[in-house]
């Protein structure tokens, strides 16, 4: 329900909806009575569905976008929580969230600047390798060394 209200309020202001749904937004258009056999509303239809125009029917890109924002918010929350409750749970959570956020972020940078099928593939493969090594390294640090939370604390103790 909330999403429908949201969409219609956005629609009234003439702003393009940001959360893509497959429902249509309708602005009623009343037609002069003499043209109507039975009263009904003709509507101008505005598509909120990105998938239809894409022609592929895939919601993958849209879901990725949403996941990126959700992760950003989760990462934001992790800051204060890590400050208040440092320890292995936060260490590994931060390792995962930071790595993934960075991976997706650099992924967008590559999408913007790298062109050509082969180059895109190579760049993304390189990024994947880098992110994997980064996550491995952070986990190693968490396990064998002081851990991320303690490391930040120590850095500021001087």
């Amino acid at each position, binding site marked *: 329900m909330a999403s429908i209200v949201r969409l219609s309020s*956005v629609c009234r202001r003439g*702003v393009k909806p*940001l959360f893509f749904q497959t*429902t*249509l937004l*309708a602005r009623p*258009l009343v*037609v002069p009575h003499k*043209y109507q056999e039975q009263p*009904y*509303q*003709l*509507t*101008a*239809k505005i*598509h909120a569905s990105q998938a*239809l*125009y*894409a*022609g*592929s029917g895939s919601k993958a890109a849209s879901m990725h976008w949403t996941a990126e*924002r959700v992760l*950003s*918010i989760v990462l*934001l929350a992790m*800051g204060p929580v890590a400050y208040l409750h440092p320890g292995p749970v936060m260490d590994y959570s931060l390792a995962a969230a*930071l*790595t993934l956020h*960075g991976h997706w*972020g*650099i992924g967008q*940078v590559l999408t913007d600047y790298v*062109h*050509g*099928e082969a180059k895109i593939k190579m760049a993304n493969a390189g990024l994947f390798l*880098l992110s994997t*090594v*980064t*996550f*491995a*390294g*952070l986990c*190693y*640090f968490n396990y*064998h*060394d*002081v851990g991320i939370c303690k*490391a930040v604390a*120590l*850095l*500021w103790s*001087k």
Partner: protein
Amino acid sequence: CPLFFRSLARQGLCLSRTPSLQISPLLCRHVAPMGTTAKEEMNKFWAKNAKLNRPMSPHLTIYRWSVPMMMSVTHRGTGIALSGAISTFALAALVLPGNYPFYLDLIHSLWVGPALIALAKIGITFPVSFHTYNGIRHLWWDIGKGFKIPEVYRTGYTVIGLSVLTSVAVAFLV
């Protein structure tokens, strides 16, 4: 009235697609066929222009720089820098012998004074602060708010101010 006939035609199109139902306009779907995706179009653009060896039009060198533009670049720059720093740290953890406190003491023995230490702290805190505050600004945009130009500038200056304040506070007070 052409508007009426166009609407009727649309209605008629919809009716023919699902003849068994009493069609509510809300359930009716437009067919607006586009042969390619945006991604395909972009690839075609790059392929064609690269093949013809066309130079790129000047952009960064001629466009008038603005605060929002610089903040966007900085957001990306800090993001890349922070990601690079994290990856470097992770790699170092895997490759270097010894442990973190050891290296921390090593670095501290090299520092020549409190000024340099403060500078280093700001150097770390500012990118994190800026990227975080501007990230919140981005999320604000993502829910559709704050796009009017005065708002863009207002939130922008707020981010810059907060970043500077946070960096200085964390560097000197903690």
